Each structure stands twice: as C-alpha cells, then as structure tokens.
C-alpha cells in the first residue's frame, strides 16, 4: 500500500515538474544554432547536456517532493531507521560516471575539430583596442578599424534624450563591418593592443580572448550570407559594453568586389607621399574624424574629458604646450593609465590631423599646424630597424 502511494505521487510530481520545466524552456531564449558547421555542433552539444541534466533534475526533484508530500509529520509519518545502503550509494556513484562519459565523448570530438585550423583559405588578424576592433586581411592587404556606429554612440550617452528603441541595432552596429566570403574556411588570429578583450559572435559558435603579447587562433566557415552581430565579451574598461563586432558574410564573388573597392580606395591614399604637407582645412576636417573615432570615447567630443581618469583637452597644458611633449604623449601613451600609444595604431597623417585638431578646437588656440613629417621625426624606429642598428653597433 505504502509503496503504491509513493509510486503514484512520484509520477504525479514528475509530471508537474516536467510541465514547469517545459514552460521554462518555452518562454525563454535559447542559444542560436548559428551558421557554421561548428556552431551547429556546439548547439547540439548544448541541447544534449541540457536534456540530460533536465531528466536527472526531474527524477531527483520528483523523489524529493514525493517525500515532502507523503513523509510529513502532519500525515502521521513515522520516521524509518535506515541510515545507509551500500547498494544504492554504489549505484548513484556509477550511473553519473557513465552519464558523464556519454557527455564527454561528443564534447571531445567537437573540441578537437574546433582546434584544427589547418586548411584555412584566408587569414584575418583581429586586434582589440580600447574600444574598437582592427581587422587586417592578410592575403588581401586590407586594414581598417571598426567602432560603435554614430547613432548608437549618440543614444548611449547619459541624458541623450534618444530612446535606444529608435536606433536600429542599438549597440550592435559598427561604422565599418568585417566583410567575409561565405563557404570559405577563414582562420582568425586574435591579439590586443592594450588590455584583454574577447571577440564573440554567437552565430559563429565561439568566443576567443584577444590578449596583448599573444596571438590566439580560431576558425570559421560561414554557410549562409547575412549580417551576424556580437560584442566584446571580456571586461576591458569603461566602454566594454560599447565595442560591437559585426560580421557581414557575402558570396565569394561579392567579396572579391568588396576587396577591389577597398584596395582602390587605399591606392588613392597611397599616391600621396607620407609626409606631404596638408593645409589647415584638410587637417582640421580629417582630424575631427580621427578624434571622434579614436579619442572621443574618453576625452569626449567636446574635449571636456571625464574626471579624474580622462583629462579634459580643452585648456589642457599638454595640448596647449610645446608640440614635442604633446606628440610624445599621443605617440607613446602614458604607461599605467588608459592613454594608449597611438604611434603603433595610426599613420603619421592621421596623427598629424588629430593633433592639429585638438590644438585648435574646444577653445584651444595654439594656431599650430602639425604636419606628418613632425610626427615621423618623433616616432620610434621600427623594431626591425632597431635590430639592424643593434647589429651594426655590435659589429
């Protein structure tokens, strides 16, 4: 009689818990299956483990709530005397081990597959900076920065008065997308220029840390054209929440067209000699663009900064002081603070423009025009040149 009761109540409890669990699965979001062979493997692995733990949970909780319902003092239950059962304990040690082995086998298979970057048809180097990404296409010789788009950036300021709901893809759009071909095995090399970041697009099925001094590698093969959005996943400072990743997968033919468009633009720029003199108008307009993309996150668009970590540039003694000191801070950074060394990141042209802009905007009136040659004179020689110098000295 007693055992029958326990069985009936147990089944009823299991049914109730199953319904609750089903409800929890139905109302919520799940992991996307994604658009790569690897992301679908990960999704399947996720679902297998999720179902296994759910079934275990239903059994354990059903037993527990059966006991809570039947074996209560108010129903006149008399406590049993048993304190031990070797058979039961061996059973519930061995069965979980078997279940874990069942999970570990596919997990190992997928992981081995994931780590195999051989046979990649192209390589893209991704460098994280506070707070934007740089993409370098190693075969196609394309390089650009990708930062939060202007609309999101305007809306995300405190008291902006712009509703995030009115911005398309709020916080998940960039000024320049990473365009890649579909059906191509792409090796992605990750590193960082300052702190640790993590490059993540859920639809590709993985994230990987971008670490200074280290190059991590991973691969992807996108099967469906489309725009896939993600974010930096490793806390990297104040604008960690504002450095999205947007990957646009297009057909290989469209990709070639995009490459052609990019490289022709670059050639035009390359025609001008590096240290060509620029006029005030060019310096100021180009400088404002560079400033907004690389400097305004900390020093604000109006140069007011954010005290105490990010000094105001308006009226700043360095900015209004001697040019060499100003160049030194921008090119070499300030170690121990968030001020990065931009000498490695931006061209002499870009730096000259940005410096000219800061020295003549926000009420700063130095009147200086900084030329690329001024910057080039103060940049460290390339590491290779430095080695050559050291060699010749040794000889």
């Amino acid at each position, binding site marked *: 009689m007693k055992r029958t009761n326990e069985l009936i109540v147990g089944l009823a409890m299991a049914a109730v818990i199953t319904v609750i669990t089903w409800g929890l699965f139905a109302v919520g979001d799940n992991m996307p299956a994604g658009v790569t062979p690897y992301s679908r493997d990960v999704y399947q692995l996720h679902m297998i483990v999720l179902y296994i*733990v759910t079934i275990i949970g239903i059994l354990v909780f059903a037993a*527990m709530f059966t006991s809570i319902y039947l*074996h209560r003092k108010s129903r006149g239950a008399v406590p049993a005397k048993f*304190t031990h059962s*070797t058979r039961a304990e061996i059973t519930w040690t061995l069965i979980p081990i078997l279940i874990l082995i069942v999970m570990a086998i596919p997990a190992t298979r997928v992981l081995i597959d994931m780590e195999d970057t051989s046979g990649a048809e192209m390589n893209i180097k991704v460098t994280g900076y506070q707070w934007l990404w740089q993409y370098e296409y190693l075969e196609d010789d394309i390089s650009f920065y990708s930062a939060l788009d202007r609309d999101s950036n305007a809306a995300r300021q405190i008291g902006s008065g712009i509703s995030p709901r009115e911005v398309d*893809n709020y916080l998940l759009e960039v000024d320049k997308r990473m365009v890649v071909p579909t059906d191509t095995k792409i090796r992605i090399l990750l590193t960082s220029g300052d702190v640790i970041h993590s490059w993540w697009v859920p639809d590709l099925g*993985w994230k990987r840390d971008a670490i200074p001094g*280290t190059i991590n590698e991973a691969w992807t093969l996108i099967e469906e054209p489309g725009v896939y959005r993600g974010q930096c996943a490793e806390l990297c400072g*104040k604008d960690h929440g504002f450095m999205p990743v947007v990957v646009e997968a297009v057909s290989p033919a469209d990709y070639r067209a995009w490459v052609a468009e990019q490289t022709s633009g670059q050639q035009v720029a390359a025609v001008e000699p590096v240290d060509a003199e620029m006029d005030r108008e060019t310096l100021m307009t180009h400088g404002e663009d560079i400033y907004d993309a690389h400097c305004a996150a900390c020093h604000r668009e109006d140069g007011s900064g954010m005290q105490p*970590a990010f000094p105001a540039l308006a009226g700043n003694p360095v900015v209004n002081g001697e040019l060499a000191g100003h160049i030194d801070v921008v090119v070499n950074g300030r170690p121990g603070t968030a001020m990065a060394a931009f000498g490695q990141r931006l061209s002499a042209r870009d730096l000259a423009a940005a410096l000219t802009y800061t020295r003549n905007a926000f009420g700063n009136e130095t009147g200086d025009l900084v030329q690329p040659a001024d910057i080039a004179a103060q940049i460290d020689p390339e590491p290779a040149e430095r080695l050559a110098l050291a060699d010749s000295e040794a000889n």
Partner: protein
Amino acid sequence: MTDTTAHIDDHHAQPKGLSRWLFTTNHKEIGTLYLVFSLAMFLVGGAMAMVIRAELFQPGLQLVNPEFFNQMTTMHALVMIFGAVMPAFVGLANWMVPMMIGAPDMALPRMNNWSFWILPFAFLILLSTLFMPSGAPASGWTLYPPLSLQGGNSFAFVIFAIHLMGISSIMGAINIIATILNMRAPGMTLLRMPLFVWAWLITAFLLIAVMPVLAGAVTMLLTDRFFDTSFFNAAGGGDPVMYQHIFWFFGHPEVYIMILPAFGIISEIIPTFSRKRLFGYTAMVYATASIAFLSFIVWAHHMFTVGMPLGGSLFFMYATMIIAVPTGIKVFNWVSTMWRGSMTFETPMLFAIAFVVLFTIGGFSGVMLAIVPADFQYHDTYFVVAHFHYVLVTGAVFAIMAGAYYWLPKWTGYMYDERLGKIHFWWSTISVNVLFFPQHYLGLAGMPRRIPDYSVQFAEFNLISSVGGFAFGLAQLLFVWIVIKCVRGGEKATAKVWEGSRGLEWTVPSPAPLHTFDTPPQVDDSVTAHKDQLT
C-alpha cells in the same frame, strides 16, 4: 552551574560596553561580531547590486556612468565574497564548532579576536576607495591585468585590504583546525563529528592552501603597477594569462570555501526536521574531501577562452565534470535522509529544501559550463552570472539563512517569529528566481556580463530580473527585522529547541551561557545526528 564554571567566570573580569566587544576572546561573542559584520556587509553589497539592477532596468544609460557601473560590479563581488559570505561562515564556526565538539572555547582565543578585528579595518580601507579621486577598482573582482593596472593610486589600498582579509582568513582557519583537532570531548572521534564540523575542517585547509596564493598574485599586481616589474606585462616579457592561472588556482578552491560549510549546515538541518539520522554519513565526509581535492585541479575551467592547448582544455574539462559525482552523492543523500522521515517545515527546513533544489540547478548549469565547446558560447555571459548566483545566493546565502534561523533560538534564548520567517522564505525564494532565472536566457541569447547598457532585444528579461532584484533586496530588510525582534524577546526557547535535534549544542541551555563545556561531556552515538555503522 557547577563550581568549576563559577570559578572560571570569576577569573575573567567582564568588561562592559565597547571594550567588552573590542577585547573579547570568547568564541560566542566573536561569533556574534562576525555575524553582525557579515550582515552589515551583506546590506552594503546588496545596495551595490541594487545600483547595478537599477541601471540595467532598461536599455540606455540613465543613472550611472560606465566607470561607476564597473566599480559597482567589482565592489559588489569583493564585498559579498570577502565581507558577507566568508565572515558569516566563520561566525557560524565560532559559535557552533566548540559547542558541537564539546570544547570550552576556540583553541587560540586571542588570535580569534585579532582575526575578527582586522576585518572592519580591511573593509573600511576597501570601501574608502569609493571616495578617492581615482575611484574604487573597476576591473572586476578578478582584477585581471593589464586592465586592473590602468587604475589610479587607490589600487594600492585595494591590494592592502585584500592582504588584510587574507591574513584574517588564514588566522581563522588555523584556529578552526587547532580547535577541531585538539579540543574534541572524550568519545568525539573524527567520524562522530557533525558534518558542519567536518565541512569546516576541510574548508580551513583549503583556506590555508590558497589565501597565500591570492596574496602572491595581488602583490605581483602591486609591483607591476608601482615598482615597474613586468610579471604580467607582455611588453616587458611577462604574461597576463599567467595572472589568470595564479588567480584561479586560488579562485576555484575559494568557490568551495564558500559552499562546503553550506553543505555542512544543510546536513545538520535536514536530519533534524526529517526526524531521521543523516543518510550515508561516511560517504558525505568522503564526498566533501573529494570535492576539496578536485577543487585544486580544475582552475583553468574559468579561462577556457584564453587559448589553451587542446590537451589542457580536455584535462580541465574531464576533471571539472568529475566534480558532479561527489556533488551528486551529497544531493542524493539529502533526499534519502528526507525519504520516509517524519518531516515538518519550519523556516530553517524550508531554506534547506530550497537550497537543495536551487543549488542543484546551479550544479546543472555548472556541468553545462564544463563542456568546453559549449563554454565558448556561455563564457563571460549572463549564463555564467546566473550559474554562480544560483550556487552562491540560493546556495551559500540560503544555507547561511537556514543556519541563522536554525541556531537563533540557541543564541538568543528566544524563538524567532515563525510567521515572519515563512514570509521571508517565500518572498526571498520567489523573488530570487525572478531575479536570476531569466539571466540564463539573457546569456544564451548573447548578452555579455559586466556591461552597463545592452541592446533592446535583451530589454524584457532584464526588466523582469531587475524587478526580482528589488523584491529580493527588500526581503532581506525583513530578515534584519526578524533577527532584531528575536534578540529582543519572544517565546522562550528550550535547550533542545527542535523536536528532532541531536548533538551536543542542543544539550546546553538556550541561550547558551557564555561558557559551555568547562567539564568535557562524554560522547557516544546516542547524541550524534548520524549513526552510520556499516551493518
């Protein structure tokens, strides 16, 4: 009272007022100090959580700027881990361990006083960084370089505070080990000790093993930041990933430092209210020890995305999955203890049952996180946030609540208000799930952790989570009131307090007099809460 008791009481002059608490060497008074301090820090850390949930209530930045938001997430974690959860367990150990093993006090009473009084100063220093020009630490409680090295001079204060907390923890741990190994009453053999005592003995060894590792890691940060070393600076030949390995070699055992004593508390409460002895006592002891051992060889599962060699990832995946086995044994044994018992559902039992269910849910997401390829998706998302809050809030904190209700009558001599206790339980349990369950969905849908603002697709579940958060926060003010009310009076508690309670602590009067077991009791199986002879 016997003559011996009177004699010892005479020997110690009782200072009054503030100096009573400053100079006390009594384990019960120090236990009270720890618990009150822990409750205060729980409210401070909780207030920071309220700031976080208020900013995340809707998309867009409304209340705080991103730097302050990062300071809040960092300080919330540091305050809750080192200020609320760990001191609460040490407070419970101070109060209960000597009474459970029949010892008159802790083995090293003066060190006991010191290890407590370091803490308020450590947290004064830590919290004061909020008012310094360069602000509180904002790089997450893990203080990963190079980001943590970008902070201002207040960073030195943070590291000094962490050193102080470590010293306090190590002294507390030494004291607990010395007490348990040397001061057990005759007949209290190791395998007659209550599970709470066992859990703390093992936890204390974990503390001694890993707190110095944390101290070393943060000291290297200090010299990197202020003395131009390059331990973690890639440009100087160092490696930022090395910090993560060292940190998590401390960090993973730290996770179990915060859960093993909780296992102990639950293993005391469930037998009492099931009126049945604990099922599989010996297995419980070995499972606890196994978990402690495994905690030293799984650290890198916190950092699968840093790009480890394949062999490394596989080792840490397998080792992590194995933890499910001893943890499973514990859950099965708790359910078996309830099975065919004669249960009643006073507030401590309600919290214990909620612990078993919700901690197990946190354990399930833990198994999912162990699967490396899937972890590449879960890592650093709200799925992880949901996971560790299930094991730390509905795990560790619920166990502390359960323990507080369970032993309050013994401490104060009065029964707490059972009706209010039940309201507190239901209010907390419902709101904590509204708070943390939707965060699983957010993580799976792609929301990274530690962001002050999010895309509008995450708005609904964030709103639900914030509402749950405010409700949960409010519920804890009710807990404060219940404790105050119980201290001030109420129904007189008997020595045994609970009908099914067993163990030495229930043989002394309620409230427990300042000095107990001046003459050691004789212990045999009739007083222990378990009887696990193999038959």
